[in-house]
């Protein structure tokens, strides 16, 4: 049983990675889209907006957000690929193999997380161009964070995918799920300066905690340098007057992720 479970994860994740490498268009778009965002938004708004925190200008502020967006886009797509598999029949090949259903779902999530990390690491190449120093320690801290964000957000994808029978629903999901998740997570602007309603909504968005945690990894020393400077907005999410630390962000993200994954595997195993 246990062996079957891990084999399922391995086999399914293996295929996800194989396909990721195979599909050039996916690889290229994964690469180009965030660059586009960085160049268009970053270069365009950078002069207008100036520094968000001392020593952090807009494009630098946005960079962790773009990284999170790249990861989330990848993991949502890999989760939704289960709909693709269902429509084109391959899911049946998985379901009749001696594999565990939970293992198949987790394999998809792990495969998606690994490919998302590859996308994320590719993006880090551009960090020095906008004045962010990449150190080996930073990369080591980023990888587990990227994996966590990816697995949690693919949970959202799985819950939706378990109810979808055709790819036509894809477009709807992109509009109604992906964009709100992105825009309500503080990728493009600091949430502290948005209207109350957006701030409230954003607190229910798992990605908010992911983006925030990534920012805290990139710019962890800002608040420490100027702890008493009232003009510096701390990086963190205010919940009942408390500003979250990185570990609290991670804990919230992981909790949401576990709930989503349990829901997804339960819905999937119910499927005949």
């Amino acid at each position, binding site marked *: 049983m246990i062996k*079957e479970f891990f*084999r399922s994860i391995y*086999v399914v994740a293996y295929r996800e990675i194989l*396909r990721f490498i195979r599909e050039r268009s996916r690889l290229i778009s994964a690469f180009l889209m965030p660059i586009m965002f960085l160049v268009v938004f970053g270069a365009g708004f950078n002069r207008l907006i100036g520094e968000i925190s001392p020593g952090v200008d807009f494009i630098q502020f946005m960079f962790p957000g773009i990284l999170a967006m790249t990861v989330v886009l990848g993991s949502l797509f890999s989760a939704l690929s289960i709909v693709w598999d269902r429509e084109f*029949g*391959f*899911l049946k*090949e998985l379901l*009749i193999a*001696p594999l565990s259903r939970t293992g198949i779902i987790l394999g998809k999530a792990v495969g998606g997380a690994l490919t998302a990390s590859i996308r994320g690491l590719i993006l880090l190449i551009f960090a020095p161009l906008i004045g962010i120093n990449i150190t080996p320690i930073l990369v080591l801290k980023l990888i587990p964070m990227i994996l966590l964000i990816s697995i949690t957000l693919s949970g959202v994808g799985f819950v939706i995918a378990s109810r979808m029978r055709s790819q036509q629903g894809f477009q709807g999901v992109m509009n109604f799920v992906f964009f709100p998740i992105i825009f309500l997570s503080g990728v493009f602007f600091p949430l502290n300066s948005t209207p109350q309603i957006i701030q409230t909504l954003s607190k229910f968005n798992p990605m908010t905690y992911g983006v925030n945690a990534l920012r805290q990894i990139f710019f962890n020393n800002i608040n420490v340098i100027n702890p008493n400077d009232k003009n510096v907005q701390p990086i963190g999410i205010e919940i009942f007057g408390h500003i979250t630390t990185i570990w609290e962000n991670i804990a919230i993200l992981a909790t949401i992720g576990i709930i989503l994954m349990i829901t997804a595997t339960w819905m999937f195993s119910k499927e005949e």
Partner: protein
Amino acid sequence: MEIIRVKNLHKNYKKTEAVKGISFSVKKGEIFGFLGPNGAGKTTTINVLCTLLKQSSGEAYLDNLEISKNQSEIRKRIGLVFQDTTLDDYLTAEENIKFHGYAYNMPKNLIIQRTENLLKMMDLWDRRKENVRSYSGGMKRRLEIARGLLHLPKVLFLDEPTLGLDPQTRRKIWEHINEIRLKDKITIFMTTHYMDEAENCNRIAIIDHGKIIALNTPEGLKVDLGGDTIQITAENIPEAKKEIQSLKLSPTIRDNNISFQVQNGGEFLPNFVQNFKQKIHSVELRRPTLDDVFISLTGKAIREQNQNSTEQMRSWRNRRGMGGNR
């Protein structure tokens, strides 16, 4: 030796009863066919036998294991080829096969060896590095059969194995299936609604509205129908008729043809012609087809019922090419 044993199997969906209590058994090494129109319960039964569905009641055993209670063990013992392809188009043929090997926990060297054997047997070895996307329908089906056989299953399930393929490809696939069966001594369980395809089976169960209404060899089913039809034209029809009646047969005359039914027409005919005293112009022996059997059992032709849209297209495509075959 029985490999599959089904007793009083029922399967209900929310409101409809798809399978209404069927019992049958499949012998080791035979080709067992389920013949029936769409919606008769063929695919539902296969899905129960291959662990994709749980029966509502009744028992089903494969290799002496109760199927719903030993899912994982059953899955290792069976290979499946579905109506619609279940290949990953974005991977090569070889990658699809290897993935299957990993999923079934086969040792690496066995995967390599079996992949080579099977792809060569299916004439796909030269194109193994190509993406499946570039394959034709027949190649995809052959690849799926190869994949279904990779893990040395005891039973190979073929759900409408040649649906939507042209006659030449269908014949080729059947050559392959027969080759495999002799080589690997494997049991084949198939469903079809093509009569000519059902002729390949050792035994056929005819299923309609969720029930088995006949189970026999193709020959047996035809014999049950009352044998073959012989039709002759003679110089003197009334005299010829009298002579036939003297053989204790009941001839009928239509359009200057005399026709009558006999058991085993092939053996009857040479003697009949030799000893017949009247002058005969022509003789025609017509064996009953499974179509005749199906019509006599259900009161309707099997194709009249295939009227959903995708099916229509498929059967049209097949009917177009099938004329010469029948």
